[in-house]
């Protein structure tokens, strides 16, 4: 793998003009976002095509002259044609074509430690934590994607992950144990519609069939989006003494989540959590166990953060728990984005 990437680099540097052709298309595959550490060269994007071909450092390969994406790459989000890469430390978003990864623009206004983003009707909405110790200063950056101008909307609550469903925006009000609700935001009026209390601090959420599943370190709650209320009593998914549940994913009517290095799966309508994990992977990492996680098309993707100071690995499993293959990626992989 390393050999392949160095071969690629050699060919790239020997003849920059031909680099477009040799890169091909970033359709039909998955981007792995490598968060890196506080230094520039550790942040990168890896692409794994559906055929299994791997390309490291996609952004720099395609755009050797473009400004760097920044450090501590937090997350990516997309619209139909573009990918948006958020750098938490550089406080900016790099916009690229989602299929060619050609650099389009840098957006660097109205951010204070941006976290996650979503696109609704030609506008991007990006959460910012600002002072990480305070929730009341968190805000949304609203980006007009026709000209990349920005504005802010105060959230007055811990604002982390953000998704869109049926024209409404849902913002997870949870940040490393602080904040215990979900905010419903109406992009049409650019204002907060309501806040749904959870009774625990959320760390992941996903919508499926009109229900918003919200995961905390011990609990899983289901919110009925037609009434904006929690349905029944949240299920206990992990003990208080455990490393805590994280990484919620819903695929094919199954709920997946992780505790330390274990992956658990249960039916979407289950009323009790499983006690036996679907799989457990080996990790040498002390900071970055299960640093990124996704389930897609019958496969489970696990990113191991490694030591954040050298290239790390991701592991692809079948949904029955068989290891298909490990893939070497960049420093501190934290997320999978299917294209």
């Amino acid at each position, binding site marked *: 793998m390393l050999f392949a990437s160095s071969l690629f680099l050699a060919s790239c540097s020997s003849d920059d003009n031909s680099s477009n052709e040799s890169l091909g298309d970033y359709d039909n595959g998955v981007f792995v976002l490598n968060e890196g550490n506080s*230094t520039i060269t550790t942040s990168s994007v890896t692409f794994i095509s559906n055929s299994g071909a791997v390309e490291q450092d996609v952004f720099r390969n395609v755009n050797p002259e473009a400004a*760097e994406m*920044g450090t501590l790459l937090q997350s990516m989000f997309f619209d139909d044609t573009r990918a948006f890469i958020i750098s938490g430390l550089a*406080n*900016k978003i790099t916009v690229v074509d989602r299929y060619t990864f050609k650099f389009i623009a840098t957006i*660097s206004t109205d951010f204070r430690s941006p976290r996650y983003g979503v696109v609704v009707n030609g506008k991007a909405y990006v959460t910012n934590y600002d*002072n990480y110790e305070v929730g009341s200063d968190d805000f949304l950056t609203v980006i007009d994607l026709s000209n990349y101008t920005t504005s802010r909307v105060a959230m007055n609550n811990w604002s982390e992950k953000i998704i869109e469903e049926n024209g409404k925006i849902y913002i997870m009000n949870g940040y490393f*144990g602080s904040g215990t609700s979900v905010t419903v935001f109406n992009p049409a009026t650019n204002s907060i519609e309501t806040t749904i209390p959870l009774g625990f601090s959320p760390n992941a959420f996903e919508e499926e069939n009109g229900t918003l599943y919200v995961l905390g370190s011990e609990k899983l709650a289901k919110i009925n989006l037609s009434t904006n209320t929690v349905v029944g009593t949240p299920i206990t998914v992990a003990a208080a003494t455990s*490393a805590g549940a994280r990484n919620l994913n819903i695929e094919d009517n199954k709920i997946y989540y992780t505790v330390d290095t274990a992956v658990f799966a249960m039916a979407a309508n289950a009323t009790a959590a499983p006690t036996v994990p679907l799989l457990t992977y080996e990790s040498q990492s*002390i900071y970055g166990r299960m640093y990124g996680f996704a389930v897609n098309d019958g496969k489970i993707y696990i990113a191991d953060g490694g030591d954040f100071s050298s290239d790390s690995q991701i592991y692809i499993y079948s949904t029955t728990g068989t290891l298909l293959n490990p893939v070497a990626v960049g420093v501190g992989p934290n997320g999978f984005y299917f294209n």
Partner: protein
Amino acid sequence: MTFKKLYLFLLFSICQSALAQHDSIHHLAVVEISDLQLKNYSDSQSVLKISDSIINKNQASLTSLLNYNTIIYFKENGLGMVSSPSFRGTTAQQTAVVWNGININSQLNGQTDFNTITTRDFNSISVRAGGGSSIYGSSAIGGSIHLNNTVKFEDHFSNSLRLNYGSFNTFGGNYKLDASDGKFSAQVSISRNSSDNDYDYVDSDDKNLNGQYYNTSMNAAIGYKINDNNFLKLYSYVFDGERHFSLIFPSEIKTKYQDLNTRNLLEWDSFFGRFVSKVKVGALSEKYKYFDNIDSESYTFGEVKTYIGKYDLAFQATDAIQLNAILDYTQNKGKGSDIKNEQRNIGSASLLLKHNLTKKLLYEASLRKEFTNNYKSPLLFSLGTSWKAADFYTLKLNGSKNFRVPTFNDLYWQPGGNENLKPESSYQAELGNEFRFNAFKITLTGYYIDIKDMLRWIPNGSNWSPQNTNKVRTYGGEAIVSWSKNFGNHHVMLNGTYGYTVSEDMEKKKQLIYVPYHKATSSLSYSWKKLSADYQLLYNGEVFTRSDNNSRYNIDAYLVSNASLNYGFGKKNSCILGFQVLNLLDEKYASVESRYLPGRNFNMYLTLNF
């Protein structure tokens, strides 16, 4: 007969007074510096003393002085920003900084930021390589840096003012008063340094943004001679500085950092018979404020107040045997936005011995034990020998056990601090060879350090917590060369250092990141009558930035040089005017990835002695 008697009497009394004189001179030499162990118990190790004339030729930060004159490697997050050393391949917490005999490493993070020390406030700065915990306590593993002020009682009076101004609106000012009437002695130094620090990166359109800094410091050493056998001394140091932290990307949130450190030490030296007793009481404080957004008033902070009581009794048992017992009681009180308010009390006892077996052969030994509830404290020791095998050759051998104690952050960080930590500890040995041929001197030293229980923060449930996990082995060799010669009115001096360092993580079997295999420095001084010229070179080998030693991401080696020219006016050079070109070759370089240091830049200085 009468005459003869008188003659005898006179002769006798002259002898008497000569003896008394001798005693008094001895006392004054002992009183002169507080850190007597540096002089008396460092024979089996290599000590490099940097005099005030060298200090004056260098930039004002301790980083710059040591970077250009010693084997110590520095990581600097941009000029003037946070600077941490690696001495013999060890971590920043494994180098002790000792101010007039008192260890001043931060109680919060265990290290000294070498850009928060202004060198001009001191008479001499010594670099003592190798283990020193049995004398200086925590952190003296790679070595220790000694900031000393001398208190002199001979009648003298001098004032000096040094001003410099240069590129990026960089200003430096230092005023020094040094006076004594035989009874009182005072040495006061006041310094101010500031810079816009907005330098352009070499070969780039980018520049250093948000890197401005200023600092003000005052250092005083006051002495009072009660009588021939009793002296009082007061050392006092205040450092107040603010730095904005420079950015890599212009869109980053701007931050700034403030330091306020005070150090006070009162000492009573008394002499009786073969004993020298030093009673010391000290009060130190350190405080930082970090503004993670300079547009906001909010900040995080940490503060530790330290009180020290110390009794140091030296005993000249015979002409050949010296003993030294030191009892120390230290109390630290810490508080901060992220640490639990805690107080810790540490008592320690040390015993030091030096025995000159012959005029050419000596050995020295020391033992130290700390008593505290805050961590498990091992017995520390050092054993060394120095043998002058020939007129031109001295062999030195030293072995020791040293430690670095857990800091307030390690113990009391909220959440995650672990109150059940052991100190990091090391066994180490070194072999030194010193050759002297007239004005040429070369020291060759090989060393080996085995460090265990290195502290590392790892996740523990939802929090991170420090644990004693890592093992590191570091070994290497170093050479220090000096030579000087006069040819009529011409005077030439050459100094050089070279260090080869292997520092291996024992788990990964890889070189630690940010430890260069090679580092070298060199300086050449030439003077002719009142004109003098200096040239300095710094070579830093490439360093790994990846723990798997993937060399694709190495920081390149760099070679940086400075040149200066100065001329003294007046009979006694009462006025010196100088001009410096820093980074003469306009090298593009960084010691930390993406943190570029300035290209060629200029500096003028004026020193007035009056």
